[in-house]
């Protein structure tokens, strides 16, 4: 072992293979072009190739893959939503996630922790009961628990939150998990690439060519590419892409921030969320506490982070865990969250033929990466929306058929 390591080190040639080809010159045309090399775009490319045999596909990423919200989120995966359509959709995603390390042959550090949404008031308890009943009805493991069970799962927590907002109970969701987010992007990229999909980094889409209501191609920083099908999977950049095709949506961009503490010995097994205190926290496999809060309060197209955020967040964290008062915050960052009025995504067809939208992922889209890739691939391949995403269509707004997920999505991710 030691000898082999030494030989490898001195060999001067490190044979670690690339995850995907270093594509530089796009072809003149593709069957489909995907804008955005985040988890969603790469998963859609993977399932287009795997489920539908469509491999003449280019993924265009203006930066590096996973550099958008995919690499900025707090990686909570769960399916305890509020509407039956939402619960079914996210449940399908959790199931795909559970087998994904094996399928993509990459360790996603998928770690099943259990997920507590803490309730500090009677009205919050009511929402928890509502969610538990909807979840059970659809076959998802969620139940309302009392303070004794919370104390058992997390004895370190001050259940009175420093006397300020005593915890009354929680929604406990057994399948709640965390994962390594960048590995999801890299795994899908490698899988898609191995089936023939071409991934271009540092390649920006600058315009979309439409004639008679049908997509003809895209203008990029590496020249014009013709294609009849374009999937926009750009999360916080969705309004800019939609402007290229003159499409209005209800999406508004707000920054969403997160931070991590210095690493500690493992002590927090579960994922904890408190809507009232605007915090959620889990401990990563590296020992850092990964923490986030609610959205920044106004529209802003930027990934700057603020001191206000850490100050507000940590004061609530210390209310829950007074012993953390000496622990340091080591990193903080922000992503641009594409927020919809009903806290459900916008997926599927648009009034423009050949222009497909996978957006409105706000603060909650990491968990949906596998299922959104699968259902969007289906939608592109058949030019017909997948059954699971019917409630998420763009036209629901003008039909006044919103999919109210706010009670389950706002802080909880």
């Amino acid at each position, binding site marked *: 072992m030691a000898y082999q390591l030494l030989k490898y080190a001195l060999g001067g040639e490190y044979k670690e293979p690339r995850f995907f080809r270093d594509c530089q010159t796009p072809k003149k045309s593709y069957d489909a072009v995907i804008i955005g090399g985040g988890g969603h775009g790469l998963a859609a490319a993977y399932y287009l190739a795997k489920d539908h045999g469509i491999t003449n596909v280019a993924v265009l990423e203006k930066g590096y893959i996973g550099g958008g919200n995919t690499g900025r989120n707090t990686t909570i995966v769960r399916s305890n939503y509020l509407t039956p359509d939402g619960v079914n959709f996210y449940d399908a995603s959790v199931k795909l996630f559970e087998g994904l390390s094996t399928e993509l042959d990459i360790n996603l550090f998928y770690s099943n922790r259990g997920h507590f949404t803490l309730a500090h008031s009677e009205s919050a308890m009511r929402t928890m009961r509502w969610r538990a009943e909807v979840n059970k009805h659809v076959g998802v493991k969620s139940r309302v628990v009392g303070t004794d069970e919370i104390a058992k799962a997390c004895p370190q927590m001050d259940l009175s939150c420093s006397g300020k907002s005593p915890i009354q109970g929680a929604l406990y969701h057994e399948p709640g998990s965390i994962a390594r987010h960048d590995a999801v992007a890299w795994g899908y990229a490698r899988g898609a690439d191995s089936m023939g999909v071409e991934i271009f980094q540092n390649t920006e889409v600058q315009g979309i060519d439409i004639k008679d209501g049908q997509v003809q191609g895209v203008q990029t920083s590496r020249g014009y590419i013709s294609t009849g099908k374009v999937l926009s999977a750009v999360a916080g950049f969705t309004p800019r892409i*939609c402007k290229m095709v003159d499409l*209005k949506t209800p999406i508004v961009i707000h920054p969403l921030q997160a931070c991590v503490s210095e690493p500690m010995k493992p002590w927090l097994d579960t994922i904890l969320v408190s809507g009232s205190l605007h915090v959620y926290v889990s401990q990563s496999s590296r020992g850092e506490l990964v923490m986030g809060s609610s959205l920044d*309060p106004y*529209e802003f*197209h*930027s990934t700057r982070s603020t001191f206000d955020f850490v100050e507000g967040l940590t004061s609530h964290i210390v209310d829950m865990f007074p012993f953390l008062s000496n622990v340091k915050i080591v990193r903080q960052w922000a992503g641009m969250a594409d927020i919809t009025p009903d806290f459900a995504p916008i997926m599927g067809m648009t009034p423009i033929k050949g222009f497909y939208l996978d957006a409105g992922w706000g603060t909650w889209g990491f968990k949906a990466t596998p299922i959104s890739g699968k259902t969007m691939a289906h939608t592109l391949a058949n030019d017909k929306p997948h059954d699971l995403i019917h409630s998420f269509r763009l036209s629901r707004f*003008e039909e006044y058929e919103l999919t109210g997920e706010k009670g389950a999505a706002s802080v909880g991710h």
Partner: protein
Amino acid sequence: MKLLNCPVNGVRPLSEFIFGGECREMPNPETSTDLEWASYVHYRDNAPGIKKEWWYHSPSGTWFIAERNTLSDEVLSTYLHGKAPAKNTKEQSA
């Protein structure tokens, strides 16, 4: 702490203000089609740029307009609704 200029109370810390969304003209509900009305309710020109927005100074209960660049977060001007300074009115009609 970021500051914002309330047209009534002057420069105050941002934490005293609440964002009220983009300011848009309401179509006439009597004459607009269902689609026009739905567009007004839901659809936004949400790409970054200089926007006219509603802001609320919460301690004094003042609603006013801010013109703000949503890409750089620079506030160009603030004024009470209908009282845009002359140079801004010109910019808008240009």
